[in-house]
């Protein structure tokens, strides 16, 4: 794992911070550098460091979180199938329009995961081949996993026609 971090540090100096948890490394990209660096960093991890498996893409909303600098985070969980090491790349994004480069050119499996993050958090992935909602109906207008979205929703549950017994 130190070799991986050294490789990244020489290629992307000052672009990220590193924290370690047990034998897993966490690479954090701040919102200023993430859009420019993220794709190249993932490509470097895949091609040069052997992290060939994208296990998951998840979104986090850090609204009202103690000590958080940026609002949205997208976490890429990468695994090295040869050495069983894992690395977590956390890229931040901010309002008004959070945007990050898509990882679909590197891993085809990122397509649905990024669609889910877009559906739930509204983070737009530039370069995604087919960025549509995947869980919510397509006419849904908000992003339900954001912390400022109310639990009961914004009234989306009641806009269907009511069928009375006489007309059915």
């Amino acid at each position: 794992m130190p070799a991986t971090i050294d490789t990244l540090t020489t290629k992307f100096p000052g672009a990220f911070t590193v924290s370690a948890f047990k034998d897993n490394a966490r690479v954090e990209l701040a919102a200023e550098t993430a859009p420019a660096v993220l794709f190249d960093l993932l490509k470097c991890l895949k091609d040069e460091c052997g992290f060939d498996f994208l296990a998951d893409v998840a979104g986090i909303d850090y609204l009202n979180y103690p000590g958080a600098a940026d609002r949205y985070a997208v976490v890429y969980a990468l695994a090295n199938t040869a050495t069983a090491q894992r690395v977590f790349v956390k890229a931040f994004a901010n309002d008004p329009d959070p945007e990050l480069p898509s990882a679909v050119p590197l891993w085809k499996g990122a397509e649905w995961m990024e669609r889910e993050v877009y559906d739930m958090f509204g983070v737009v992935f530039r370069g995604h081949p087919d960025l549509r909602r995947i869980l919510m109906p397509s006419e849904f207008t908000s992003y339900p996993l954001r912390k400022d979205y109310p639990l009961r929703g914004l009234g989306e549950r009641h806009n269907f026609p009511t069928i009375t017994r006489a007309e059915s």
Partner: protein
Amino acid sequence: MAMTGYLPDFLVTKLDYVASMVRKHSLWPMPFATACCGIELMATASSRYDIARFGSEAMRFSPRQCDLMIVAGRVVMKMVPVMQRIWLQMPEPKWCISMGACASSGGVFDAYATVQGIDRFLPVDVYVPGCPPRPEQLIRAVLDIQEKVQRTGTIDAREFAARSAYEGPTALARELGAEEAIVAPGDYRTATRLRTPLN
């Protein structure tokens, strides 16, 4: 002289009565099972509880062959158009059982994706409380449907034409607005008690 000699040659009754009697003893359920209530529904159809004792064992998975829709389980926003379509595909006469707390009122799932009771969108005849209801309760609901069919049924299903108004629940005394939703930020460090929100 044989016993048949004492039987009357004809009976006088109402056609509606005969039609309802035939219908109520051969209800064909459409199991619209989306969640755990569906498991109870299957248990009701199994040998221990045996809904076939009441003539309702012919569960069909095509709405074209059914006349009793049993909505068992929570129904989410995306499922409502499907449910309505299946209901519209069922031939007359037809009835609907809303089984369990989720189908009847949303249950514990008062979240953005779950509708708070299918009776907001469908005409429901019998509600079954419980989470999930025991098979005996579902059998009771089938018996209630049978009673309703016998009491109100007509041979040409004209009793449904009178039900032209919305039959769902009236609004609560005070509907909770979206901004009144309960959002409680927890303390991420100790994960115990609520803290005052940061500004």
